């Protein structure tokens, strides 16, 4: 086995420094174009929670604590796999560890090796949350809708009664002509009408849970390899070059 002193190795290093620099710089700039494996994409977004006009029931909908917990849970990911079917792989996601103090939204990071998987996973996640919210809110919305229908039918009934008393004025079908009604019925119809307006506002005030901005393929960015990885790869190539040079040098010495 051959031994050489450090001075020889350092001379060899100095001699090959220009080549090594060329390899280092050129590989740093060329690697991004040729590197085509092990890519990781990421989507940084935030989930905005469902909103309602009626404050009394808002605590029953998904809030920050529950969403954070669900996103960290393995069971939730399994449920996504079940509902997602076999068309797309479920990509990884997690609650962002930094800057996630805002109670009105949850910052979430989706990442994986396929852009389509990330897009489908993000929509699966939000749909799953919407399902959970709808299970709670639908009871109220449906009851409001039923109440509106009921009120309308009562108003119609009142109008019909007014017709039956042979008042000769024209009654607009579908609208309440309060002038034709008796005083008590007038008040009741007005109250019910006002109530219906309020209920309609409540029904329309529900804004379901969603992402802060719409998700599409353009929202997803390349996370890995980043600049640091390209730097690492270029150093790796340079070291590999020197590794070959040194071994060749020792082989030459043996001869």
């Amino acid at each position, binding site marked *: 086995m051959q031994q050489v002193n*450090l001075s020889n190795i350092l001379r060899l290093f100095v001699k090959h420094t220009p080549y090594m620099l060329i390899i280092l710089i050129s590989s740093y700039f060329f690697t991004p174009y040729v590197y085509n494996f092990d890519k990781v994409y990421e989507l940084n977004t935030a989930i905005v929670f469902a909103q309602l006009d009626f404050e009394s029931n808002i605590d029953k909908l998904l809030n920050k604590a529950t969403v954070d917990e669900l996103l960290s849970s393995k069971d939730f990911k399994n449920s996504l796999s079940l509902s997602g079917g076999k068309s797309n792989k479920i990509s990884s996601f997690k609650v962002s560890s930094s800057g996630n103090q805002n109670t009105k939204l949850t910052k979430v990071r989706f990442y994986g090796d396929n852009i389509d998987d990330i897009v489908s996973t993000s929509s699966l996640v939000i749909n799953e949350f919407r399902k959970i919210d709808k299970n709670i809110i639908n009871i109220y919305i449906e009851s409001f809708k039923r109440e509106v229908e009921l009120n309308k039918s009562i108003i119609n009934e009142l109008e019909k009664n007014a017709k039956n008393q042979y008042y000769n004025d024209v009654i607009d079908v579908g609208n309440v002509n309060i002038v034709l009604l008796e005083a008590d019925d007038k008040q009741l119809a007005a109250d019910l009408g006002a109530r219906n307006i309020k209920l309609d506002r409540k029904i329309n005030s529900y804004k379901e849970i969603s992402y802060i901005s719409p998700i599409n393929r353009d929202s997803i960015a390349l996370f890995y390899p980043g600049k640091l990885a390209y*730097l*690492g790869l270029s150093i*790796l190539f340079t*070291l590999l070059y020197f590794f070959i040079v040194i071994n060749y040098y*020792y082989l030459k010495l043996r001869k």
Partner: protein
Amino acid sequence: MTERSSKIIINTFIFYLLFLPIVQAFLCINLKIIGVIFFPLVLVFYSLIDWKKFYITRFDASLVLILLLLNVFDTLIYSLGTVFFMSSYMIIISLLFSKIVIPNLSIDYYLDRINISLLIILFFLVLEFLIVSTIGSSIFYDNLTCHSDGVQGYRELHNATSDIFLMEIPGLNSIMMGSQTSSELAAVISIWSIYKYKTTEKRFYIFTIILSLLMIILSPSYTSIFLLTIGLTLYFLFEVYSKNKLNIYWLNFAPIFVVLFSYLMYEFLLVRYSDPSIFPTLFQEHFVGFNYMTMKELLFGAHKLKIEGLFASSEFTLLTQVAKLGILGVTIFYGSIAYYMLLALTNTNATGKKERLTTIFILIIIVIFLLGNVHYRVMFQSGVRELFLLFLAYIMFMSNNSCKNSN
């Protein structure tokens, strides 16, 4: 590099390794970074000054470059962090010691430093036992307990001997801190003392042999007894091999010894795991984590967070090390150590009797360190790791000597 500067470096290093664990535990601050940066820098500086005396083999150069490649890959490309940094530090610092420090010192001086450091550890071990058995261990708990990340503080340990003799003495920690360190170091000291007695024939070393064995008995661990038995068996095999005329009479005892040793180990295992039927489950718990790792993770190592969730049991640190560094990293680290060991062993044929004995004993001690690390990482923790590096540096020095001889 002059002999004086080599002496200063080696003495500083020994001072650092002996007092680093205790100072870290007392201040509860991770200080190992000081040594990790300071010593390589000083040694690289001296190697650059003395560049014409610094000889490098093809394997040394390739190994250093491979270590650099792995570190670059893990840190910058694979985003695993500095997982391979400590292993690289261990190999590089040993190489630097073997190339710069040891050649400028007499071998006797170097071995004498190792001897002194081991005697200091033994002295403090005895002192700790005396304090713990008389005053109590509260003085250590109050001052040296530390739960900071990366710092091994004084730990309350169960002592099997106390149970047998109905004493209320906890297990010893030694100045290196942590569980099992004291007993495993006592095993190393006993093997070293046998070597010292064989080479110097001073009665003092019979005393240190007895004292170190007593320390193992007073604060035992299954691993230390196993390691000591392995060490003694290797020594016995070396003795049998080195004799010109093989004594057949003694060889008759070999099967009896093997049976007795196996039975003893089985009994010891039963102390820890009363039901042997747990072993298949235990075995599965250790290996099942690898099933969830990708081929890339198996080769280059998995992320810390992934490993935490995969391995339910951590009885064998080596497996966690494989998961962390990958098969490639572990093979490079242990493979390079094994290479230097084999080279040094081959070289023993070309050296004098004393050098041969020294190399064989140091090889046995290195085997003890490496096997001790299979179970818990106590033999590679701050302080103990540096002690291991002194032995490894000697082996690297001897392996390089073989190169010089062959040239």
